C-alpha cells in the first residue's frame, strides 16, 4: 500500500541518481503558512515539512542541512518545505513549547512519521531517514539471526537478497544503501541491520563502518542449502553499490569467440577489468568449470569470460591460459600463464589497485597524487639528507685547488652535484671507501661539486654525474667504470696501487703471483689473477696483452712473464705459448687459455671474461657479466650455502660440456635476499627451497621449475633438460615483456592553459542557451573581464586548498612566499 505510489517514478531514478552528485546548486526552501502547506499536499505524494515558530530563533544549522536535502529528495519525488507557525493559524504540528520544533513526513495528508530535528543531523541523515520511512516495507530491518534466516528462506529459489550492515541509522553509508534500495527495491529484497553481533554470526570477522552482501538465494533450490554470499569490498557509496548490483545482474561467465581487445561487456563500462580463461575444445568442460570457479571468486571485481582459442583469430601465446585486460580504454590484453585460481584472483586484485584508490579519493578526478615521490633513489636520498656524513675524510676541491691537487698527488676525484640524487647516493659509498682506506692509502680521495664548479667539471669532460676519475702523475686520467658502490670502487683503488701489468721476474714469483700471495696484504677481497706467458720473441702479442691489461686496469690484475725460462710454466700448465693463466681464488686451480695473436680488442674481451666462473654464485654485482652471455640461466635458489651434492652434479655436467647452452649458477638468499622477491614473482608465493629453475630471459621469458619432489642428480637434471628441450614441460610462468611506461601521468599544463579560454566561451554559450541561468551569471563579468589569473578554474582553487592543508610526507610543505 505504501510503496505503490513510488513504483511509478522509479524508472527514472537510476539516471537521477547519477546526476544528483554533481548538482550542488541550492534551491530555495519554500516557506509556507500551515494553511498554505496543507493545501499543497497531493494524495500519494510524500512531503517533508519543518514546522517553525515565527519569531523564535530558528535552528539555522538544521535549516542549512534541510536546504541541501531539497534537491536529493526532490529526485525521489519528495517535496520539502518550511512551515511558519503564525498565531492565528496555529496547527497541532506547531507544538506547544517554543523551540522544540519537529519535522514531519506526510504522504498526502497522512502523517507517516515525525522526526525530532536532532535525528536529522545532516543531509545524509535527512535523506536516509526519509527514504527509510518510505521504504519501510521493502527494506526489512533485522536484529536477530533468525529474522535474517527467515527472510533468506522465504526467498530461496525465487529472488536474491541484499543485506547490509551500517554502523548507525543516518550515516552516509545508510543513505547510500537506502538510495540503492529505492532503485533496486523491487528487484531484490533488501535487509538492513545495525547489530554488529549479527554480522559476526554470519561469519564475517572483518568489521568496519559498513558492509553489504549479495545473497544469491535465487540459485538455492534446496531449503537446507544456504544462499551463496558475495561481499562487496568497495566502500559503501551510492555509485559503488550501483556498480556492484549491476555486476551481480550480469551473467556469471560469458563465452566469447572474438578478439579479447574488442570485447565490450558491462564490466568494462563499469570500470572493472576482464579476465579471459583461454579454453580449447578438448578441455572445454574443465575450462568452463575453472571459469565459473574464478568468476565466483571475482564476482563484483572483474568480468570473467571464456575465450575459445580455436575460434579466435588472434595470436595467443602458446602457453598462455589466461588473458587479462584492464578497464582503461587503451589497456592492452596481457597473456599470462597462471596455473592456479588463486594466482588469477591475486593478479586481478593487484591490478585493480589503482582503480580502488581512485574511488577512495572520492571524486578526485586527477587520480593519484603526482607529487608523491616514486623514485627510490631520490626518495631515500631525500629522507637521508639530515644525517651528517663524515665528508671531512675526502678533500673538497674547487676551481682554485683542482689543478694543483690532481697534478701534485695521485688523486681519485668524485664529480657530483648536490642536487642530483644518484650522485648523492653514490657519495655515501664514496665516503665509505674513504673510511675503509683511512690512513692506509697513498691515493688522495677528493670530490668536486659540479653544481658549484660546473666549468671545472666540463673541462674534465664530465658531462654526466656521478663520475670518478683517477689522476696519476704523468698519466692521463682513468675513468672508473665499475659499480657505483663501495666494494667495486675499493677494488679499483687497490688494484690501481700496483703497476699494470705486473712484470714478473722469476718462475718463483710467478707461482706466488698465481697463488695470490704476491699482493695478499694489499687486498681485502679475493680477486682473479691473470698471467700472460710469452716467449721473448712474441713481442707484438705481448704488447697487445699489455695494452688490454691497461684498459681493464682496476677491474682485474694482469701480470706478464716473458723470460727465457717461460717454457717451464708453459709445460707445467699445458699452455702452448702465447697463453694466459687464470688463477681463481674462489674455485682454486689454474686454467690456461691459449692466446692466438689476437688484436687488442679481442684480447680485452678475453680478459674481461676471465673472471667469469663455470658455476658462479649469482649476486647483484655479478649478474650483468653473466647476462652478457645471452644464455638461459640454470639457477638454483638456495637458502644458505649450496648443497654440495648439487654443486658436484652441476660441475660434473659442466666438465662434460653438457650445459654449454646454459649459464649454470646458483643464488644464495642469505647473500642476495632480493632472490625472494624474484621467487615471489615466479611462483606468486615463496616456494620450498632449494629450487632449481631454468630462466629463459633472452628468448620468450619462460621460467621452468625442476620438480621439487625429485632430488637433483646429474641424471635427473639431464632428463629434465631433455624434456624441456622437447617441449614436454610447461613453464611455471612467463616473464612479462611489458615495456616501462611512465609510472604516473604528468600535469597537463597545455589543457590547463587552454581551460580559462574555453571556460570563458562556455560561459557565454550557457548564457545564451539557458534562460534560467542568465540571472545567476549576470553578476559575473562577461567575456573580456579580468585577466585569467584572477579567475582560476574553480576546481583548481579547491584542490590547492585541500592540498595545502594536507600533511605531505615527501618534500617540505610549500607555502606561497609573500616576498618580504
Amino acid at each position, binding site marked *: 500500500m505504501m510503496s505503490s505510489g513510488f513504483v511509478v517514478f522509479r524508472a527514472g531514478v537510476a539516471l537521477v541518481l547519477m546526476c544528483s552528485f554533481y548538482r550542488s546548486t541550492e534551491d530555495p526552501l519554500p516557506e509556507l503558512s500551515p494553511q498554505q502547506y496543507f493545501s499543497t499536499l497531493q494524495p500519494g505524494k510524500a512531503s517533508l515539512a519543518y514546522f517553525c515558530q515565527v519569531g523564535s530563533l530558528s535552528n539555522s544549522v538544521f535549516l542549512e542541512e534541510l536546504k541541501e536535502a531539497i534537491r536529493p529528495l526532490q529526485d525521489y519525488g519528495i517535496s520539502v518545505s518550511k512551515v511558519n507557525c503564525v498565531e492565528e493559524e496555529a496547527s497541532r504540528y506547531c507544538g506547544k513549547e517554543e523551540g522544540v520544533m519537529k519535522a514531519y513526513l506526510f504522504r498526502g495528508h497522512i502523517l507517516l512519521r515525525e522526526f525530532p530535528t536532532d535525528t536529522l543531523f545532516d543531509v545524509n541523515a535527512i535523506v536516509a531517514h526519509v527514504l527509510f520511512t518510505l521504504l519501510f516495507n521493502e527494506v526489512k530491518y533485522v536484529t536477530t539471526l533468525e529474522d535474517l534466516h527467515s527472510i533468506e528462506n522465504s526467498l530461496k529459489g525465487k529472488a536474491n537478497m541484499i543485506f547490509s550492515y551500517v554502523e548507525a541509522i543516518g550515516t552516509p553509508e545508510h543513505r547510500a544503501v537506502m538510495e540503492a534500495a529505492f532503485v533496486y527495491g523491487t528487484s531484490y529484497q533488501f535487509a538492513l541491520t545495525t547489530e554488529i553481533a549479527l554480522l559476526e554470526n554470519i561469519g564475517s570477522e572483518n568489521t568496519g563502518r559498513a558492509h553489504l552482501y549479495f545473497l544469491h538465494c535465487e540459485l538455492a533450490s534446496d531449503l537446507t542449502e544456504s544462499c551463496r554470499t558475495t561481499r562487496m569490498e568497495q566502500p559503501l557509496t551510492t555509485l559503488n553499490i550501483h556498480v556492484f548490483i549491476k555486476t551481480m545482474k550480469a551473467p556469471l561467465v560469458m563465452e566469447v569467440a572474438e578478439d579479447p581487445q574488442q570485447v565490450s561487456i558491462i564490466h568494462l563500462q563499469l570500470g572493472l577489468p576482464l579476465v579471459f580463461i583461454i579454453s580449447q575444445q578438448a578441455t572445454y568442460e574443465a575450462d568452463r568449470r575453472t571459469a565459473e570457479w574464478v568468476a565466483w571468486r571475482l564476482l563484483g571485481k572483474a568480468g570473467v569470460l571464456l575465450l575459445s582459442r580455436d575460434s579466435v583469430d588472434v595470436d595467443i601465446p602458446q602457453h598462455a591460459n589466461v588473458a587479462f585486460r584492464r578497464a582503461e580504454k587503451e589497456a592492452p590484453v596481457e597473456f599470462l600463464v597462471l596455473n592456479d585460481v588463486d594466482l588469477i584472483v591475486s593478479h586481478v586484485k593487484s591490478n585493480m*589497485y589503482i582503480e580502488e*584508490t581512485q574511488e577512495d579519493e572520492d571524486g578526485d578526478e586527477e587520480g593519484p*597524487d*603526482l*607529487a*608523491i*615521490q*616514486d*623514485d*627510490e*633513489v*631520490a626518495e*631515500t*636520498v*631525500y*629522507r637521508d639528507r639530515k*644525517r651528517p656524513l663524515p665528508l671531512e675524510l675526502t678533500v673538497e676541491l674547487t676551481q682554485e685547488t683542482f689543478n694543483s691537487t690532481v697534478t701534485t698527488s695521485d688523486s681519485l676525484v668524485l664529480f657530483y652535484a*648536490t642536487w*642530483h640524487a*644518484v650522485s648523492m*647516493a653514490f657519495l*655515501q659509498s664514496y665516503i*665509505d671507501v674513504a673510511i675503509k682506506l683511512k690512513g692506509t692509502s697513498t691515493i688522495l680521495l677528493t670530490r668536486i661539486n659540479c653544481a658549484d664548479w*660546473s666549468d671545472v667539471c666540463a673541462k674534465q669532460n664530465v658531462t*654526466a654525474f656521478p663520475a670518478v676519475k683517477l689522476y696519476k702523475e704523468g698519466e692521463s686520467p682513468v675513468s672508473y667504470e*665499475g*659499480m657505483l*658502490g663501495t666494494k667495486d670502487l675499493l677494488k679499483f683503488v687497490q688494484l690501481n696501487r700496483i703497476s699494470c701489468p705486473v712484470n714478473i721476474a722469476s718462475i718463483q714469483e710467478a707461482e706466488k703471483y698465481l697463488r695470490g700471495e704476491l699482493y695478499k696484504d694489499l687486498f681485502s677481497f679475493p680477486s682473479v689473477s691473470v698471467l700472460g706467458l710469452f716467449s721473448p720473441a712474441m713481442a707484438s702479442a705481448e704488447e697487445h696483452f699489455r695494452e688490454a691489461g691497461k684498459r681493464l686496469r682496476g677491474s682485474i690484475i694482469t701480470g706478464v712473464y716473458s723470460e727465457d725460462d717461460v717454457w717451464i710454466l708453459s709445460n707445467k700448465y699445458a699452455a702452448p705459448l702465447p697463453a694466459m693463466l687464470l688463477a681463481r681464488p674462489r674455485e682454486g686451480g689454474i686454467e690456461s687459455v691459449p692466446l692466438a695473436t689476437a688484436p687488442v680488442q679481442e684480447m680485452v674481451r678475453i680478459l674481461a671474461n676471465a673472471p667469469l666462473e663455470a658455476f658462479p654464485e649469482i649476486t*647483484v*654485482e655479478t*649478474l650483468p657479466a653473466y647476462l652478457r652471455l645471452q644464455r638461459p640461466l640454470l639457477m638454483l635458489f638456495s637458502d644458505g650455502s649450496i648443497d654440495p651434492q648439487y654443486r658436484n652434479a652441476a660441475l660434473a655436467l659442466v666438465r662434460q660440456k653438457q650445459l654449454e647452452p646454459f649459464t649454470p649458477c646458483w643464488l644464495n638468499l642469505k647473500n642476495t*635476499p632480493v*632472490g625472494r*622477491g*624474484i621467487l615471489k*614473482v*615466479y611462483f*606468486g608465493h*615463496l616456494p620450498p627451497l632449494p629450487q632449481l629453475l631454468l630462466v629463459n*630471459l633472452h628468448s620468450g621469458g619462460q621460467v621452468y621449475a625442476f620438480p621439487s619432489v625429485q632430488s637433483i642428480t646429474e641424471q635427473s637434471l639431464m632428463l629434465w633438460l631433455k624434456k624441456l628441450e622437447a617441449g614436454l614441460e610447461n613453464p611455471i610462468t612467463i*616473464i*612479462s615483456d*611489458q615495456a*616501462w*611506461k*611512465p609510472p*604516473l601521468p*604528468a*600535469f597537463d599544463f*597545455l589543457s590547463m592553459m587552454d581551460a580559462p579560454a574555453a571556460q570563458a566561451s562556455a560561459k557565454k554559450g550557457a548564457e545564451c542557451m539557458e534562460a534560467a541561468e542568465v540571472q545567476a551569471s549576470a553578476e559575473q563579468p562577461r567575456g573580456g573581464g579580468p*585577466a585569467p*589569473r584572477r579567475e*582560476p578554474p574553480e576546481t583548481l582553487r579547491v584542490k*590547492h586548498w585541500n*592540498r595545502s592543508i594536507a600533511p605531505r*610526507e*615527501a618534500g617540505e610543505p*610549500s607555502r*606561497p*612566499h609573500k616576498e618580504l
Partner: protein
Amino acid sequence: MGPLGLLLALALHLAACTRTHRDYCVLGAGPAGLQMAALLQRAGRDYEVFERESAPGSFFTRYPRHRKLISINKRHTGKANAEFNLRHDWNSLLSDDPRLLFRHYSKAYFPDASDMVRYLGDFAKCLGLRVQYNTNITHVALDKDPQAWNGHYFILTQQNGQAYQCSVLLVATGLSVPKLVDFPGSEHVEGYESVSVDPEDFVGQNVLILGRGNSAFETAENILGVTNFVHMLSRSRVRLSWATHYVGDVRAINNGLLDTYQLKSLDGLLESDLGYLALVKDSKGKFHITLRFFLDENNSSQSADAIPLPQDDNDNFAMRVAYDRVIRCLGWKFDFSIFNQSLRLSSGTEFSKKYPLIRASYESKGSRGLFILGTASHSVDYRKSAGGFIHGFRYTVRAVHRLLEHRHHGIGWPSTEHPITQLSSSIIRRVNEASGLYQMFSVLADIILLKENATAFEYLEEFPMQMLAQLETLTGRTARHGLFVINMEYGKNFSGPEKDVFYYDRSVAHVEDAWRSNFLHPVIYYYRHLPTEQDMRFRPAQWPLPRPAAIHHIVEDFLTDWTAPVGHILPLRRFLENCLGTDLRSFYAESCFLFALTRQRLPPFCQQGYLKMQGLSSTKSLRQHGVESRLLPDYTAMENSSRWLGDHPSAPGPLTQSLDSNKEEL
C-alpha cells in the same frame, strides 16, 4: 649626384685592386664588436675590427653623461658557480679568462662608465684582439662575386680611401645618432649629449625635459635638488622596468622624479605628442610652450610676445609656466649613413624605427652575410628581453658566431650527447646556472634533440628560438625524432607598464599551478617534429613558440633555485616520461637485479647503468629509508613465506610494489 657617383665608383675601382681581404670584418670596437672579435680570435678566424676612435668603447667615454652605469655589477651572490654568477654580472664580456670579469674593475654596484672604458681596453689588449683604431669606415658597399661565401663581398672604404674586402660583415656600431625633434622653436632645445652636467648651472631654474627614458630621468636626477622644478614631457606614459621586466625601461635607481612628482614637490610628469608643440622664446630669454597650430594660424613673422599661448584660452593650462631651459633626452638611433643602398639595410617597423631590420638570426634581411650585433640588434627583442644590453647581446653575439662557424667552416653547433637517463639532470643543471637563457629569456633557448627511440639525446645551448624552423640548416644537427625547447618566461599577463606587480598572491608555489607562475621560470616545450616556418609564423598570440605537443612549467622559485626534489625535479621527470612514453626513474642495483630476472625489458636507468656493470649500490642507511618509504621491499622480512602472503592479502606483488606502493601512503 652624377660627378660624385663617378668619383666614388672610380675610388672603389681603384680600391678593388689594392683592397685587403678579411673573412670577417667587424665594425666598431664596443662591447659587441670586441665580444665577436674574442670569439673569432679563439676560433682562429681571419678577422679585423675597425674602430673610429683611438680606444675601444668610445661611447662610454661620453655616455652616460653623468657617468653612472645602471647595469649591475653584483660581486657577491653566495654561489661559486661562475656561469650562475654571470646572471648577475651585467657588464662582463664572455671569455675564458676569469681575470676579465668586470667585478675586478669596479667595486660599485652601479659602476662608473670610465671603468667600463678601462675594462674594454683591457679586454682587447689581454686577448690580443685585432683592432684597427682611428679607422673611420665611411662607406660600405656590395661587390657581387660568385666566388664569395655569400655571393658578394662587402667593400669597406676608410676615410683615406683604403678599402677592405670582407666575406662577412658584422656591424656593431651601436646606436650613435641622437634622436632629434623637429618643432617650431626646437632650435632652443639643448641635447642630452651636450647639456651641462654641473648642477650649479641649474640653480633656481625651471627645467623642462623632453623624453621619459633612462637618460631623461638620469638628467633630472642630477639637477633635482637645485632647480625650482623639473617637468618631464613625453609622448606616452612612463614605463618602469620593475613593472615591465625590461631593463631598458626606467630603472628604480633613476626614479627620484617620480617620487617628488607623486609627493607634489613641484616636479612633474606630463604626456603629450611632441609634434604638436612649439617653443617660443620671449624677450627675457624664457621659453613658453605653445601649440604648433597657433603658430601656423598666425603669421610667423609676429614677434615672440604676440604669439598666442594655450593659457590665453585655457587659464589653467598645465605648462603655462615659463622655462629657463629645455633639454632633449630622446635616446639614439642607428647610423644608416655609411651603408650603400645595394646593401638594402633598411630601418625597422614603426615600432622599432631606430634599429636596422634584421632576422631572428641577426642577419640583415637585405643582404646575406651582413649581421647586426650588439645594441643595434635590439629590434629582435625590443622591449622584451636584454638583447640591447651587454648582458644580453654577449650571448646573441655568441649565437651568431656559432651560426657562422657552421655556415662557413662546417663546425656544427656545439652539442653534447647523453644517454636518456641524463635528460632531467641536463635540464635541471642548465635552468639553474645558464646565464644566456636567463638574460635572453624567450630569445635564446636550449634545444634537446632526441635520438632514435629516445635512448639518447643531443643538447644544444642558446639557440635563437625564433629560428627553430631552420634549426637543421643553421646548426648542422638533425631533429628527426622529436625535440624539447627549454625557455625561460615571465607569466603571460604579469608584466606591463600599467600592471600592478606587487599584488597579493602574485607568486605561485604549488606545482600544479606552475603554468600560472608570474616570475621568470623555466618552460619546456615538447615537439614531435620540428615546427615549420608556417607553424612559427602562425603561432598563437603571445606565445614565443608554436603550440607544442606538451608543455611543462617548472614552478617559479623565490630563490631561482630549481633543484627541489619534489617541487621541481619530480614534475619535470613526469613530464619527460610522458613525452617519451618511458620510465625515467633511477633504481638501485638491487631493484635492477630483480627486474633483470623478472622482466624481459629493463627501465633505461638499469639498461644504461646496471647492465653495463655500473649499477648504483645502496648503503645501509639508504636501504632502511627505502623500506620505510615502502619504495624498497624488505626481502629479508619475507623469510616466512606463508606469513608474508597472509599479511598482505591485497598487496601487489613485489614487481608492482615499487610502482604502486607509494600510493599506500596516501
